[in-house]
């Protein structure tokens, strides 16, 4: 009778899991960067562009946010794969753009929280509009929003396994492949979950401390 947990399989699955984890981390970091930058741009457009621009942007943002990442991944992969060599690059961009819609909301709330007096002071000092954004509004807005942005970064980390639908060899897909090859799913999938927990829990504690510090 086989025991339910085999250390042999746990150790055997570890190299492929860690290979996958590298991709998971890479996707999280690059996806977060994309979402941080695009999110800020979208938030500024929605706030200051004329409605002929901001209305369609708002519509697209709502649509992307309210439809599944999985469907977007498969769709983008099928449409773009003739033109883009790297499936991973497609996955990272889709993940980044999906979370752009969340981060744009966070920035928007942060921008709204900057007191009106700051805008008035910038006008009184006749700062140009671009400098008002760059030197006055954005620095204050970002400080307020750091914890929420961090939470979304963790949440992206935990959604990278959705990449399995476009066959990117991230950690959970590798765990499943290992299970399929050896008919032993227990160790690989359990370990994948524990690695996620080990990485995301300390990060979320860190963000909670940051939240208390900034509050």
């Amino acid at each position, binding site marked *: *009778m086989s*025991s*339910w947990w085999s250390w042999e399989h746990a150790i055997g699955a570890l190299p492929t899991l860690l290979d996958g984890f590298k991709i998971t981390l890479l996707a999280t970091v690059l996806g977060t960067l994309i979402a941080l930058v695009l999110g800020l741009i979208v938030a500024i457009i929605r706030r200051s562009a004329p409605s002929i621009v901001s209305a369609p942007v708002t519509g697209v*943002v*709502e*649509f992307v*946010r*309210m*439809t*599944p*990442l*999985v*469907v*977007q991944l*498969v*769709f983008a992969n*099928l*449409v773009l794969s003739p033109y883009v060599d790297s499936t991973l690059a497609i996955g990272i961009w889709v993940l980044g753009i999906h979370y752009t819609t*969340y981060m744009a*909301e*966070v920035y*928007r*709330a*942060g921008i709204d*929280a900057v007191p009106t007096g700051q805008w008035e002071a910038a006008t009184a000092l006749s700062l140009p509009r671009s400098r008002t954004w760059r030197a006055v509004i954005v620095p204050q807005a970002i400080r307020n*929003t750091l*914890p*929420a*942005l*961090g*939470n*979304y*970064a*963790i*949440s992206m980390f*935990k*959604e*990278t*396994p*959705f990449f*399995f*639908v476009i066959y990117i060899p991230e950690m*959970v897909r590798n*765990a*499943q492949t290992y*299970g399929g090859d050896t008919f*032993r*799913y*227990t160790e690989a*999938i*359990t370990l*994948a*979950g*524990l690695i*996620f*927990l080990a990485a*995301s*829990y300390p990060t*979320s504690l860190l*963000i909670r401390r940051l939240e208390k510090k900034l509050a």
Partner: protein
Amino acid sequence: MDGVIGFFADLGPNFQLLLDRSPQIIEGVRVTVLATVLGALLALLIAFVFGIAQLSKAAVVRWVARIFVEFFRGTSLVVQLFWLFFVLPQLPYPLGFRLDPLLVAVLALGLNYGAYAAEVVRGSINSVPKGQYEALSALSISPARGMVRVIIPQAWALMIPSLSNLWIQLLKGSAIVGSITLYDLFFQVEQVRDRTGTWFAYLFALLAYFLIAWVIVVIMNALEVRAKHSIGRGPALREAWRSLFRPPGGKTAEGGLA
């Protein structure tokens, strides 16, 4: 024909094809809605049990609830889904059993998003002003009765926007259940892709999910209006029906997740 040009050229025949396949598509919608609704109900139950348990006076109860919540938030949804589907049947007697794919989906969605929602419940109960608790003891209302009649109704109004966002996340997360042989909306749409072309099939799928998400938004907005009205902080549903079609974003700035 494929690509954007094919999308417009074949629009008529593609709609015809979709119409011919409507029994399968409708079955897919049924599965998606079923998983989303049952998953959300389980998540709500878990959220209240573990959200309130984290505020318990007994340290043991608090810690058990805390570990449960951190565990199911920290291990990704996909891992939980695969664990219940692939690993659970491989465990030895009496633990190892194969669950129906729908049950696996509902359990994974409910446990994962329930853990997130437990944080929302905890946070909302915590943000009910302390004066309300003092008023309860001044009126010598028992803690249990005060919780049910005074604290939770106020917290409920506060938590609905975040729960609304989580429910939409749950709907979106449900699109992966095809990988555990549960044939949902997305799975059924993929079956017609070869014949309709990529653009038509996926735009249809996205639009269908978007519509379901909007139904969720309207339901939750209605619940919010009602909850606020019942604690005397807003108009009745009859007068405020316009606000039902407000988009969900922006109402929660805390980022709710992670």
